[in-house]
């Protein structure tokens, strides 16, 4: 386990949080989307994170008895929210059903905002970890001076 492993882990965290941010942006942008490729209104999407071992080279496995002690985070799946669509009475809408109701995405703006803040803060936390790892390396290099 060398100094760069900490950077790799943080890098995976950054990638994961960035993807989460993209999904939240997509959810916010599609608050009023009534048509999708699969038919019906847009459904909000959410990432599922899983811890995964670092890329295992033969050398690394050979060198360590416990090779997956520093897990990376990885997005394994993007799920669609199972909540029922909100029905809005709007008989003039082209997507309205026979009774005049339009199925709208069940997206709560407050909820998405909170998730947005959480994603931003998690990203920042990973950046801080990268900076701290770099600072440690730089401090080690200062020993020689």
């Amino acid at each position, binding site marked *: 386990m060398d*100094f*760069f492993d900490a*950077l790799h882990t*943080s*890098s995976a965290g*950054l*990638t994961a949080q*960035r993807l989460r941010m993209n999904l939240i942006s997509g959810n916010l942008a599609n608050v009023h989307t009534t048509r999708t490729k699969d038919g019906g209104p847009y459904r909000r999407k959410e990432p599922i994170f899983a811890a995964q071992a670092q890329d295992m080279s033969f050398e690394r496995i050979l060198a360590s008895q416990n090779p997956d002690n520093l897990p990376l985070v990885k997005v394994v799946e993007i799920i669609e929210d199972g909540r029922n669509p909100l029905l809005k009475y709007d008989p003039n809408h082209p997507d309205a059903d026979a009774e005049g109701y339009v199925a709208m995405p069940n997206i709560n703006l407050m909820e998405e905002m909170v998730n947005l803040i959480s994603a931003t803060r998690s990203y920042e936390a990973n*950046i801080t970890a*990268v900076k701290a790892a*770099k600072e440690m*390396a*730089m401090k080690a*290099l200062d020993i*020689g001076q």
Partner: protein
Amino acid sequence: MKEITLDNDVKTIIDSHASKNQATTTGSTSFGELLNNSINKVSRLQNEANQSIEALASGRQKDIHNTMIAMEKAGVAFRLMMEVRNKVISAYETIMRMQV
């Protein structure tokens, strides 16, 4: 971005160190070889950072942070190499200043 295209500088350091150290050591893995290997590693990291910047600029890669981290890695490795070089040079200068 200038900082990480120092391949030529790295090569000159490799050459100068290799010629300087091979004369002094005769062991199986000489200090020169060791230095050569680590300088090659630094060079590889610089190349990685270079490729990462190219990928970002041409739109093949869209993660800014991966490029930044590659650049930081190259930077830290290069600084480590410079510290070793400074130490070697200062040792050489100490010897040169010796009174005979």
